[in-house]
């Protein structure tokens, strides 16, 4: 598990997983898309508490190894400001057969999304911004926007 301040390089990362016993490689990439829940997104900002994100990420990868007979697994998550189309997170898994690689890759990204101390702020075309998943966080922080219809504090779903 690694947190990166620069562009994720899936090709280089995948090559680190190679091995003569590997018959299957499944990779997931989360990309910044231009829309979320009907609002046009300009860019995203990821805030990460790295010490615990790495520790919890390693734990998730260990759980995947215990659960599925996989060979290698890794995950890298971007931090900071990301533009549309950039890769925010990469998960790669290798195994002898494809069943385990698919299942473990899915398990890792699912857990990473809900367990790691990572927060995502969306910046919208209309000038608003908001922390994803944070319906009632810091409700009093931006009173001028509350009056304008709460568009930035509504429940938001995860990007991908």
């Amino acid at each position, binding site marked *: 598990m690694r947190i990166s301040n620069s562009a994720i390089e899936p090709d280089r990362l995948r090559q680190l997983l190679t091995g003569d016993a590997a018959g299957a490689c499944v990779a997931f990439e989360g990309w910044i898309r231009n829309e979320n829940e009907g609002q046009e997104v300009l860019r995203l900002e990821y805030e990460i508490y790295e010490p*615990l994100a790495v*520790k919890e990420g390693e734990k998730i990868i260990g759980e995947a190894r215990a659960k599925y007979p996989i060979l290698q697994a890794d995950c890298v998550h971007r931090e900071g400001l990301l533009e549309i189309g950039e890769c925010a997170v990469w998960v790669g898994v290798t195994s002898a057969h494809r069943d385990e690689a698919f299942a473990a890759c899915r398990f890792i990204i699912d857990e990473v999304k809900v367990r790691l101390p990572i927060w995502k702020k969306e910046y919208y075309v209309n000038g608003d911004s908001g922390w994803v998943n*944070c*319906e009632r966080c810091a409700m009093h*922080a931006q009173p001028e926007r509350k009056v304008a219809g709460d568009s930035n504090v509504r429940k938001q779903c995860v990007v991908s």
Partner: protein
Amino acid sequence: MNKNITVRYFAGFREHAGVGEEAVSLSAATAGDVYELLKHRHGSQEPLGHCKVAINDEMADWNTPINDGDTVLLFPPVAGG
């Protein structure tokens, strides 16, 4: 009896508090007490179950006891990926 702890705020909590970290003295028995007693700082109405907490860089539960000198990390709902 009050405990002297360090609190760290993240994401929306940090934006509301205006600081990422501060020293506080609170009559808090558990991590959950810290969250409740500092509502005026992090400003969140989220139920505890939506948020997470870590104590001294270990993930913790809201009912984990707080000791003098602890660093308590208050995490808003996460959204990785």
